[in-house]
């Protein structure tokens, strides 16, 4: 059974990869992800896994090689952060367009310029339209659990899509936390052996990968991709149910925290959700009906389910740890879309958007408190003065 340990997020994820024992791991170092591939390299060097390592000369090549290896017909992992993900951008679309079940931990980090190595969500949000499934994680435990589940989701016969598992750089990747490992055998049985679909290395049945598709069929291929993405939600729920039976830990499309009877709520991703939950509790003690929603599956985005979960609220603040310059925060745009479509009998919550924590700026309980108190006033009838606002910034 499980083993309780005190480890960093990177160590937890590296161990999830070890337990999955992929056939190929292509890698390229980048802070704060480096620690994952370093640890994995030592697993390989010590014969703990059977994996073949490929030390690429860039993230572009790391993803290209991952695509080649995955098309060849086997389980493939890589990992990255920030600029690395940005360099992969072209290949991310190709991995999903070719329906290749690559699993990639993404240790979230800010994008340059100016250069910054610390955690924010600019990298992952920038990749939200690449056709990858995205699972976001609050803690080392969640990152570990999501990584294990990612293999089942990615390799599921109904979808065969690449999956990105996101966790906050440094805040989670480099902080030691208490968590629980599953047993090696349990994980092995849970993930199961890799099943090939149209492998390139089937020498008896030569196939061609990557044709030129012009105006007469491209639109149809994208329609098919849309259809396949539509199947992901059910697969994630099914895999999460099975995982709960194994681990006792329950995962859905998102986490609701004290939301059912709430008047106001924060929508917030990853590690900052933990800080916010404490403040929700504190306000509840003072009689303020606060709650929280933490998305887990960000792509495909569960608009309907989230709309349903939030529609009874009076006011909601979407907290973005990334900005879409010239637009609202990326998650705000999703929540707004969800709420516009949600059937609230003509009523829908007031929505505001706060940009916080860019480039690893600390997100403090006082930040959550300030936002929740503002929401409480809006819920009580105060006007919304600014839809989008930076918080935790020196004015």
């Amino acid at each position, binding site marked *: 059974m499980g083993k309780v340990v005190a480890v960093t997020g990177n160590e937890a994820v590296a161990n999830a990869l070890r337990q999955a024992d992929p056939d190929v791991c292509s890698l390229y170092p980048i802070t704060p992800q480096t620690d994952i591939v370093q640890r994995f390299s030592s697993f390989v060097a010590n014969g703990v896994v059977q994996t*073949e390592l490929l030390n690429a000369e860039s993230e572009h090549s790391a993803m290209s090689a991952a695509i080649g290896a995955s*098309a060849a017909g086997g389980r493939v992992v890589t990992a990255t952060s920030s600029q690395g993900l940005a360099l992969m951008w072209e290949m991310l679309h190709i991995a999903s367009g070719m329906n290749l079940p690559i699993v990639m931990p993404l240790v979230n980090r800010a994008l340059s310029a100016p250069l910054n190595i610390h955690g924010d969500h600019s990298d992952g949000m920038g990749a939200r339209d690449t056709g990858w499934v995205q699972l976001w994680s609050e803690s080392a435990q969640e990152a570990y659990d999501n990584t294990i589940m990612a293999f089942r989701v990615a390799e599921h016969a109904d979808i065969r899509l690449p999956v990105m598992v996101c966790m906050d750089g440094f805040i989670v990747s480099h902080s030691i936390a208490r968590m629980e490992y599953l047993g090696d055998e349990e994980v092995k049985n849970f993930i199961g052996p890799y099943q090939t679909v149209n492998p390139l290395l089937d020498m008896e049945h030569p196939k061609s990968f990557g044709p030129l598709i012009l105006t007469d069929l491209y639109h149809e291929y994208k329609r098919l991709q849309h259809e396949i993405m539509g199947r992901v939600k059910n697969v994630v729920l099914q895999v999460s149910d099975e995982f709960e039976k194994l681990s006792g830990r329950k995962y859905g499309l998102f986490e609701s925290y004290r939301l059912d009877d709430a008047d106001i709520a924060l929508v917030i991703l990853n590690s900052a959700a933990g800080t916010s939950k404490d403040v929700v509790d504190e306000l509840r003690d003072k009689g303020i009906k606060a709650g929280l929603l933490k998305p887990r599956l960000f792509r495909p985005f569960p608009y309907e389910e989230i709309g349903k979960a939030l529609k009874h609220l009076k006011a909601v603040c979407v907290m973005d740890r990334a900005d879409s310059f010239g637009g609202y925060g990326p998650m705000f745009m999703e929540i707004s879309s969800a709420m516009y479509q949600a059937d609230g009998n003509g009523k829908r919550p007031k929505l505001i958007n706060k940009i916080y924590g860019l480039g690893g700026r600390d997100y403090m309980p006082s930040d959550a408190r300030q936002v929740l108190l503002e929401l409480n006033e809006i819920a009580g009838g105060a006007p919304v003065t600014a839809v989008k606002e930076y918080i935790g910034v020196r004015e």
Partner: protein
Amino acid sequence: METRELLKWSAQVKLREKSKQEGRLEHGHRMCAGCGAPTVVKMVLMATEYPVVLSNATGCLEVSTCIQEFTAWKTPWIHTAFENAAATLAGVETMYRALLKKGKMPENVKFIAFGGDGGTYDIGLQSLSGAMERGHDMLYVCYDNGAYMNTGIQRSSATPLGADTTTSPAGSANPAGKLQQRKDLTRIMADHGIYAAQASPSHWLDLMNKVKKAHSIKGAKFLNIIAPCNRGWRTATDNSIELSRLAVETCYWPLYEIEDGKLKVTVTPEEKKPVDLFFKPQGRFKHLYSPENEGVLEKIQAQIDKTWERLLKESEGPC
């Protein structure tokens, strides 16, 4: 070439037997009439007598051989993007090793990447260098037509000095066309400590021998093959083999190989011809014959002579 000589070569490579083998590149591809690239690919594959897995950089060869459900490839083939034929195939080859270790693959599979000069000399150089340095058991074949032909004849770092391309056009302010020398990629690749060679479809026996030799060596190998492009070189459709022959006979495209750091010229022209014979039939060099470009051809000839002498010297050196 002498008929007798030709038949002798033909016997050496057992062409008659080869013609009975099933080809690995099928007709119905959409390369331009008379293009040199499919002939290069055909010859490379003809030299292989074992299962091969291919990758292809984006380019003429790729878009013309695999479009919609029509593929000309009869052996496993993958294209992902422009700059990464080497990295993509490196991934395939790594997966092969992983599966071989587990007893899931036969032992005799070989790997070949094809890329044009744009995808090899320029945008794909990093990916190529990385794959060669890591020593993947693969052969990278560059079919060098000296420009970005797929996008419409733009200059690359393989474009020869003086060539008129759509992005190095000869004009009134710059009558000479491309002002820079070609990058010597074969030498750069050889400096990775791998087997690297230059070949030409006109000298098909030499080409096939190099493919065979490359595949007899475990690890990374690089082959640079001249592949005339009628459209980009502004020449007749029947000229591709003749021009590749003239490229060799003028020593514009010397045939040599470098193995273990030792260079060997594999074909020495009986009589070294002036580069003019190679340039004259090509419209891309037409402007070099006008008065404002006086001296350019001589400069090019001098450069070719110098390189050829250096090659001969190295080839003759202690070995």
